[in-house]
């Protein structure tokens, strides 16, 4: 396969954590091309595609992509567009990653706007796909239907769910609950072919086996995601504090560790390696800004998996059959 283009300068821990993850991916047999400044330390034997500029985390997404044409993000997207890479991954500025992918790789026909799909862990089961988790703060009803179709394809291809149950995130299960977007969204999703719409879901359903794909606008999705992350961190921190409170508790905790560690791993965002930008005419993985080497490795693995299963082609087919 063509290499995965890795933005060496994206993220709070770049370039060290990114390079470490890229080396681990190469060791695991996944070809990688790094995109970064000439002479970057630590590249080793991995090919380096030169890019002289970096888009910072706080820069205006669309404006920076237009101004910084030789940035690592823009060059990553161009590598995919020009057939030099099979996919791209960045832990950098999320908005600029989306703008780079959109402007350089383009959209799949029938997709108004790409959406960020995030895997939300479900204990003992496959994750729930939450989308949009941050690409579009405001969405139209029609976009929600497109998100539902793309999320269903993703759930099927990545997690093996044959007929994914799609829920619309709202404030109550009844069809009339929610604001105008949710009410109209419910009506449209009920009529949308090719999806298994089960109606409204609530925030508490996300980490259960009640639903496989949760559809919402990017503003709500991002708030939900960050709330879940923060809550889980708080719970885990409190647990560890309780474990360390007395020697007796510590002994009990040591005995429980073999059961707790797999649970911790399932809740750790690094396990999933990043979210995918669905609707782009190419594979683009957006990793957490604070990505560790393990997160990058897992993100690169997801990128390869998405190329291997032809995620883009499957979404294109699903949307085309809907238009027929």
């Amino acid at each position, binding site marked *: 396969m063509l290499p995965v283009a890795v933005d060496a300068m994206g993220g709070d821990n770049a370039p060290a954590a990114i390079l470490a993850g890229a080396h681990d991916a190469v060791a695991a047999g996944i070809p990688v091309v790094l995109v970064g400044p000439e002479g970057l330390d630590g590249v080793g034997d991995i090919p380096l595609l030169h890019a002289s500029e970096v888009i910072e985390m706080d820069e205006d997404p*669309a404006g920076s992509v*237009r101004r910084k044409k030789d940035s690592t993000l823009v060059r990553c997207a161009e590598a995919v567009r020009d057939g030099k890479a099979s996919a791209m991954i960045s832990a950098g500025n999320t908005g600029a990653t989306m703008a780079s992918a959109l*402007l350089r790789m383009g959209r799949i026909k029938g997709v*108004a706007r790409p959406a960020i799909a995030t895997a939300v862990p479900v204990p003992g089961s496959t994750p729930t796909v939450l989308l949009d988790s941050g690409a579009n703060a405001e969405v139209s009803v029609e976009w929600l239907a497109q998100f539902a179709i793309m999320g269903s394809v993703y759930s099927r291809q990545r997690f093996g769910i044959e007929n994914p149950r799609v829920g619309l995130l709202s404030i109550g299960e009844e069809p009339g609950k929610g604001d105008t977007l949710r009410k109209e969204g419910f009506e449209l999703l009920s009529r949308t072919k090719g999806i298994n719409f089960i109606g409204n879901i609530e925030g508490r359903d996300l980490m259960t086996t009640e639903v496989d794909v949760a559809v919402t606008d990017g503003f709500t999705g991002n708030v939900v995601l960050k709330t879940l992350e923060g809550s889980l961190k708080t719970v885990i921190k409190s647990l560890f504090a309780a474990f360390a409170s007395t020697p007796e508790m510590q002994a009990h905790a040591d005995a429980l560790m073999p059961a707790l560690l797999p649970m911790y791993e399932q809740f750790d965002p690094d396990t999933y390696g990043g979210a995918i930008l669905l609707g782009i005419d190419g594979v683009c993985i957006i990793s957490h800004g604070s990505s560790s080497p393990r997160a990058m490795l897992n993100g690169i693995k997801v990128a390869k998996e998405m190329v291997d299963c032809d995620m883009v082609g499957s979404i294109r087919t699903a949307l085309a059959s809907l238009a027929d």
Partner: protein
Amino acid sequence: MASLDRAGVLAIVRNNLAEILEMDAAAIGEGQSFVDDLGADSLALIELVDALETDVAEQTGKQFRIEDEDLADLKTVRDAVDFVVGQLG
């Protein structure tokens, strides 16, 4: 070096808008507003400007750029066409 007249610029604007907004190019009128009439959002306008820069540069053989501060003044299809024609001199 190839030249580009007003009709050529209009065709470029229309064709790119049609592709970005997935609509019929023939249905796009010069007097139409990007946002109010055609439903383009800010990202769609960035896509349009990016595509215009590429297409105009390709057809004229000269670098062509629309600055962000100029973008704010482009409200209608006619505004965009007039701006590009004006820049080409």
